[in-house]
């Protein structure tokens, strides 16, 4: 393991209204979120799950979202994806304001959400055969599915049904389903949480390759600080009650980062400390 100079990360101030404005400024950002807030209203109570969220993701950038369990990461992702309406604030994808799902967004849920009556390859095909997608010829479709299956290492399981898969295999099918659509903006909710160390590294590499090839933007929720350190261009730490961006870091170390694990340790410690602080914040604000 080689060592490199210490200056590979820059530290931006926490809870800034416009966290990171001007680093790749010519094109409009792949994702721009401003002042986003959301409440869950149940008969028993009203929970502000997050509020005042500002964030940007540039094309070709991978941003990781960390935060304590239940702070609102999944809710934020669903709201950005247009699957649930925000109570305030706006979301722009490639300069376009959106309130409902957009075809160039690829969302991966925290659960695999496979359709149990379809085989693995049919589950992947479903996302490719919708009207808004460019029509694919049979062989083109076939080769897209083959490629997606190959990249997640499940070519032998194309005819299996979801209940015949292990937890990690189901998660990989969900990855394949998402990337096969070649989205411009990937929103991923703990995509590698069920994978062993090696497979996880393979999948992480796959993701980096896809970003490099297709210059797409990725917002990735994870609970694994090491994963964030290995993958991201920026790391956002979310606080809770209600969810907000507590702090953010830019990670500038070159890939492959596994070479630089020692160097990232300081940042790791810093993030862990911030996470502890976040979890010690006073609770409530449940209106």
């Amino acid at each position, binding site marked *: 393991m080689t060592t490199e100079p210490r200056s590979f990360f820059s530290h931006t101030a926490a809870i800034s209204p416009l966290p990171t404005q001007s680093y790749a400024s010519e094109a409009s950002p792949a994702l721009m979120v401003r002042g986003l807030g959301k409440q869950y209203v149940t008969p028993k109570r009203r929970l502000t799950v997050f509020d005042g969220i500002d964030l940007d993701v540039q094309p070709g950038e991978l941003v990781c979202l960390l935060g304590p369990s239940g702070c609102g990461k999944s809710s934020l992702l669903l709201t950005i994806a247009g699957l649930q309406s925000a109570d305030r604030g706006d979301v722009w994808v490639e300069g376009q304001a959106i309130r409902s799902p957009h075809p160039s*967004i690829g969302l991966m849920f925290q659960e695999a959400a496979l359709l149990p009556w379809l085989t693995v390859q049919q589950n992947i095909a479903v996302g490719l055969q919708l009207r808004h997608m460019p029509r694919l010829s049979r062989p083109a479709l076939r080769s897209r599915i083959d490629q997606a299956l190959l990249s997640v290492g499940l070519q032998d399981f194309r005819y299996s049904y979801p*209940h015949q898969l292990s937890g990690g295999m189901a998660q990989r099918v969900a990855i394949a389903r998402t990337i096969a659509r070649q989205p411009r903006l990937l929103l991923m909710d703990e995509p590698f949480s069920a994978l062993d160390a090696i497979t996880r590294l393979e999948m992480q590499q796959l993701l980096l390759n896809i970003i490099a090839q297709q210059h797409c933007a990725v917002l990735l929720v994870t609970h694994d600080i090491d994963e964030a350190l290995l993958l991201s261009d920026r790391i956002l730490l979310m606080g809770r009650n209600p969810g907000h961006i507590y702090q953010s870091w830019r990670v500038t170390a070159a890939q492959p980062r596994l070479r630089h694990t020692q160097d990232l340790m300081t940042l790791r410690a810093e993030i862990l400390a911030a996470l502890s602080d976040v979890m010690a914040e006073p609770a409530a604000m449940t209106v």
Partner: protein
Amino acid sequence: MPDSLTRPSQQRLRLAIPLPLWGVLASVLLWWLATTPVLHSSLVLHDFSPERAFAATLQLLTSGAIAPHIWASLRRVFVGLATATILGIPLGLLVGLSRPIEQSTSVLFQFVRMISPLSWMPIAVMAFGIGDMPVYFLLTIAAIWPLMLSTAAGVAAVDRRWLLLSRSLCATRGETVRKIIVPAIAPHILTGLRLAIGIIWIVLVPAEMLGVRAGLGYYILDTRDRLAYSELVAVILIIGLIGYLLDTGFRAASRAWHHEG
């Protein structure tokens, strides 16, 4: 213990006589005990006994006398079921998917579905005359509700994650319905079909009162009119057999959807 719970993958020891036959044999025995001339003195009762019923069934089937009735009824069952399916499933989907539609139609539907085919009869005759048309009408209006209700219940029970998935893939309404909802509720639709076919046979008998010249329901009424109870039971057996075969077909289709096996 319910077997499917305790030993999902274990094979059962096979009895020499398959299980379905045991059930049938046991019930035939009970039936025989309740009606046989050997044990009972009532002449009317004897007509209901299995020995006479089987003789009558054999006679009806071999003489071919029942064939035109079977065809006539099967045609009506088919038309009624097809119409009810074509109307009931889309209605169920609409009602299940859209609250405004559900709200604006539910009072009406709940009203209409409580109306017995026998009370529709004067209206059916007024509107459709006599013959096949009013029969189709009565069968359809009776069979549409289980299909509609089962479909709507199925839509309500669709896993919300699949709907979220579909929306996240930007599927259109039609695509969501075709690719997610319809396959997801296939078991519900099949239950609806199984119930519908049961109701159709139930309603067939009164429906074939309406001035038709053939049909199993017509034949049942005939046997009642002439108190030919052994033939009545024979026709019941034939209806049961046909119904069973249709039902088996549906269940085979249903199993095709349950890959979980």
